[in-house]
């Protein structure tokens, strides 16, 4: 067991992983869909980790049209671009992304409660 534990860190460099993660999509390429509470019963949905090749603005436009909500693309210093939508759109976003073929179902991670 102990030799296995020593082996694991050398097999894959933690620093390489960390630096890859910082550069946006990351090794696993999960798309994180989160929800955040605002005041009252309002909430905010953020979509983080879409592939860089996609035009965020175009996706956003369709999302806005589909769910009838407003939203923006936020430029985050660490995580790159993040789509922000008004309201709790987690389910909607994930089904939309899957149906449009942008992300596979297993690569979407829904966060929040």
């Amino acid at each position, binding site marked *: 067991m102990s030799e*296995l*534990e020593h082996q*694991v860190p050398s097999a894959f460099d933690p620093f390489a992983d960390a630096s890859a993660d910082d550069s946006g999509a990351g090794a696993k390429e999960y798309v994180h869909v989160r929800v955040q509470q605002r005041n009252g019963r309002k909430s905010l949905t953020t979509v983080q980790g879409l592939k860089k090749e996609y035009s965020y603005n175009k996706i956003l436009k369709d999302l806005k049209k589909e769910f009838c909500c407003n939203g923006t693309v936020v430029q985050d210093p660490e995580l790159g671009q*993040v789509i922000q939508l008004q309201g709790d759109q987690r389910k909607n976003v994930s089904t939309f992304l899957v149906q449009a073929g942008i992300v596979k179902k297993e690569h979407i991670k829904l966060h929040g409660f």
Partner: protein
Amino acid sequence: MGDDHDLKEEGGEIVPFDPSKKKKKKKVVIQDPADDSVEKLAEKTETLSVSEGLESTFSGLKKKKKKPVESSILTDEVGEAGEELEDHIGDDEEGEGIDLHPRYPWEGSDRDYEYEELLGRVFNILRENNPELAGDRRRTVMRPPQVLREGTKKTVFVNFMDLCKTMHRQPDHVMAFLLAELGTSGSLDGQQRLVVKGRFAPKNFEGILRRYVNEYVICIGCKSPDTILSKENRLFFLRCEKCGSGRSVAPIKAGFVARVGRRNAGT
């Protein structure tokens, strides 16, 4: 326990076709192993989970016997079961009639044993003698989170420490995960309760804790919650105490947190 299972099954049984029709249609086709009701039984037992497999197997068998009984009580081996069932046919409560039934469905007949029945018998014996081997794993019960509202904008998670103890995890780690998932901030107060900013229902916490347990507590190999989380070289490793397997788990990252609330002029 037997009652509601049986009733549930009853519902599933009746839905596809009319019960009155069934009465006439199903003549004395009993005890033939190739009977289609046996197949029905087989798929029924498949859908049932392991823990309740035994009882439902038997009740399912009784159902098979009952069908001919309803039409005619010609056959001798169902005779004794038929009489007591006859009383109950009028009302819907068949659960009590079933309890009086003989222990094994093949008793009194000289037909071949079926696999499902023998499997059920083995599990029955196993469960009686040493229950821990029977395959239904002892579930660690986590108490539901108790949540209070502090004022209107804060939520207090009262039994946070208890739950951390039952999971054998550091409160810090659990707290980090909860706060990252909820997308808010929070802290522990003087009585070791978790105070979270925002309004949350107990159900919310439960969902998140469930995910936490799946990701950071349960061993993938043997599904046992008896694991240890340790940190080595900035990586978290989960080691199972039961089967000795280990895996690495993802570090907790809050990800993008949009700023909500009023932005002041300074920033």
